[in-house]
């Protein structure tokens, strides 16, 4: 049970809450049920991926559960892929649900990388959800989401 976020929740055994699951035709999986994904993020996803289904899985998104200022948040995206010529990750996209602009970065990869892992440092203005989407060589889309609390933004 890590203080780091990974794809999946840290519910106690015996008290596992049902995660919002993918409904047929639904485009996006969110960690947090009920609250609607802000429109900006939904629009950005549509712009990038059209109506293609974004499935949950294969992607591990690591970022700290809390950040003090949110100015320099280390993020690592790992995609479960053999990275062969036939079966690899073409691109990784990172989004922030509540930043002024939802896009953070896009990275193009290929079998020449050997491992589908990217790390960077990002700015997250306030408490929010971060989403990583991977496009595989078979054009399927896989994702993971994680929540981060930015503590300095809770103030008087």
């Amino acid at each position: 049970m890590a203080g780091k976020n990974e794809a999946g929740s840290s519910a106690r055994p015996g008290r596992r809450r049902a995660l919002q699951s993918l409904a047929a035709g639904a485009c996006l999986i969110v960690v947090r049920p009920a609250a609607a994904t802000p429109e900006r993020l939904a629009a950005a996803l549509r712009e990038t991926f059209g109506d293609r289904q974004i499935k949950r899985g294969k992607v591990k998104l690591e970022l700290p559960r809390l950040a003090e200022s949110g100015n320099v948040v280390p993020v690592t995206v790992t995609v479960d892929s053999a990275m062969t010529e036939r079966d690899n990750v073409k691109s990784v996209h990172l989004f922030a649900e509540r930043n002024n602009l939802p896009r953070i970065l896009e990275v193009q990869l290929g079998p020449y990388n050997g491992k589908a892992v990217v790390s960077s440092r990002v700015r997250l203005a306030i408490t929010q959800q971060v989403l990583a989407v991977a496009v595989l060589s078979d054009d399927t889309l896989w994702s993971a989401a994680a929540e981060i609390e930015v503590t300095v933004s809770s103030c008087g």
Partner: protein
Amino acid sequence: MMSRMGKARVRVPERATRGEIVEIRTMVDHPHESGFRHDDMGRPIPRHIVESFTCSYNGREIFRARLHPAVSTNPYFMFYAVATESGELVFTWTDDQGGAATQIARITVTD
């Protein structure tokens, strides 16, 4: 506006065996100003960001990133590459004011 692209640093292993997956770390000095900050009188500070970062291995592109304002100041990347042959890795950064930076690292690949 003048570009404030600064110096770049990369960390690539000097040697590797053929087929080994090596870790590459890169950073460039750049304010990567988001455009959402304000100055002392509440006026927006103009955006000035690194827009793209690429890595080529003996002329072949093995990494490309498109950066948006939410990347932190002094953009940092870590990624991996399969060591295939000895040669040069060329890293380039370009920003939205025509600024550019390049770094080159050599790698010796043995069997």
